[in-house]
């Protein structure tokens, strides 16, 4: 697998741990434990105390809720998970009968994921198309060749992805998504703040990620402006711990957005018109 795919196992490990919190769990992903091996729990332990596990739990719930809300309210039936990683939403969320879910990621990751989930003999709950691509290249033609319709409204989900890209790449990706789908399409994504990337307190965490071959490169202190410049209008901007984004679950203070110098994470939804 690609190095960056190990971070997908890390995410799966965080989801597994959250799922096993019983009634307190924000969601249940019974597949995550199978998808987290071999590196996921090792990375979770290595980066313990960085807030990543809690953040992933809150983000997963935020994305789950946003997907369900958008499908119900907008009538969108074409969904694309960009860099889907070890996502098991095809198996665990309720989906409309006529929905089509495209999962886009490295082909090698799908091999690993499929072989593990097939052993569980659990059916998907939505028609799913796996699109194996080089995520660093121009993968849109491959998505279109798989049946994706750019003249339809789309729900794009780019979760846990943007910080691995450069600013130019992140902007290019969001611009491409805005152009490659009809007006009225929606976006669910997350990013870190630029302040987090340059703050002295985060440097040892960021150095470890760099040494692991998965550096965080991009963040924004002004997500609405960044989205706007890429063709998206922000419809929600939340920080972990705020209402609708893990309120009561986040064990750190949630600081008002006007407090300067604060490392932050942003949960985001947008629309392209």
């Amino acid at each position: 697998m690609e190095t960056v795919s190990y971070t997908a196992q890390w995410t799966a490990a965080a989801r597994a741990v959250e799922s096993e919190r019983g009634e307190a769990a924000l969601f249940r992903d019974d597949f995550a434990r199978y998808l987290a091996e071999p590196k996921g729990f090792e990375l979770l332990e290595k980066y313990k105390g960085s807030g990543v596990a809690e953040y992933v739990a809150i983000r997963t719930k935020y994305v789950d809720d946003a997907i369900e809300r958008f499908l119900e309210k907008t009538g969108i039936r074409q969904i694309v998970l960009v860099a889907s990683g070890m996502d098991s939403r095809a198996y665990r969320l309720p989906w409309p009968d006529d929905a089509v879910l495209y999962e886009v990621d490295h082909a090698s990751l799908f091999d690993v994921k499929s072989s593990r989930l097939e052993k569980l003999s659990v059916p998907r709950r939505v028609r799913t198309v796996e699109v194996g691509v080089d995520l660093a290249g121009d993968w849109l033609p491959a998505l279109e060749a798989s049946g994706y319709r750019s003249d339809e409204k789309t729900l794009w989900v780019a979760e846990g992805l943007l910080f691995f890209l450069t600013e130019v790449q992140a902007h290019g990706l969001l611009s491409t998504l805005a152009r490659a789908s009809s007006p009225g399409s929606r976006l669910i994504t997350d990013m870190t703040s630029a302040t987090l990337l340059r703050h002295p307190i985060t440097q040892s965490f960021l150095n470890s990620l760099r040494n692991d071959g998965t550096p965080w490169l991009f963040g924004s202190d002004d997500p609405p402006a960044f989205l706007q410049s890429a063709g998206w209008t922000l419809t929600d901007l939340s920080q972990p711990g705020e209402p609708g984004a893990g309120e009561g679950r986040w064990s750190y203070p949630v600081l008002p957005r006007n407090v300067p110098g604060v490392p932050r994470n942003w949960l985001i939804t947008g629309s392209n018109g």
Partner: protein
Amino acid sequence: MSTLKNARIEVVRAWILAKHPAQNELPGELDLIEARLVDSLSFVEFIHVIGEASGKEVDPENIELDNLRTLNAISQAYF
């Protein structure tokens, strides 16, 4: 160390210990960041506590991390 300095550093020590019940003691030379007693998510609250204790706000945009690594360093730089 003056009584005032002592009183101020005890405020910071108490704040950290309250956050980490498993931590029994907090030697003045312990690297708080290395020991993960202070991390990026609690950091702003941490410097707020130092600011409250010293009576002078700490500018979050102008921080020298080495002044914040240990209770002794905090005492020297801020109290």
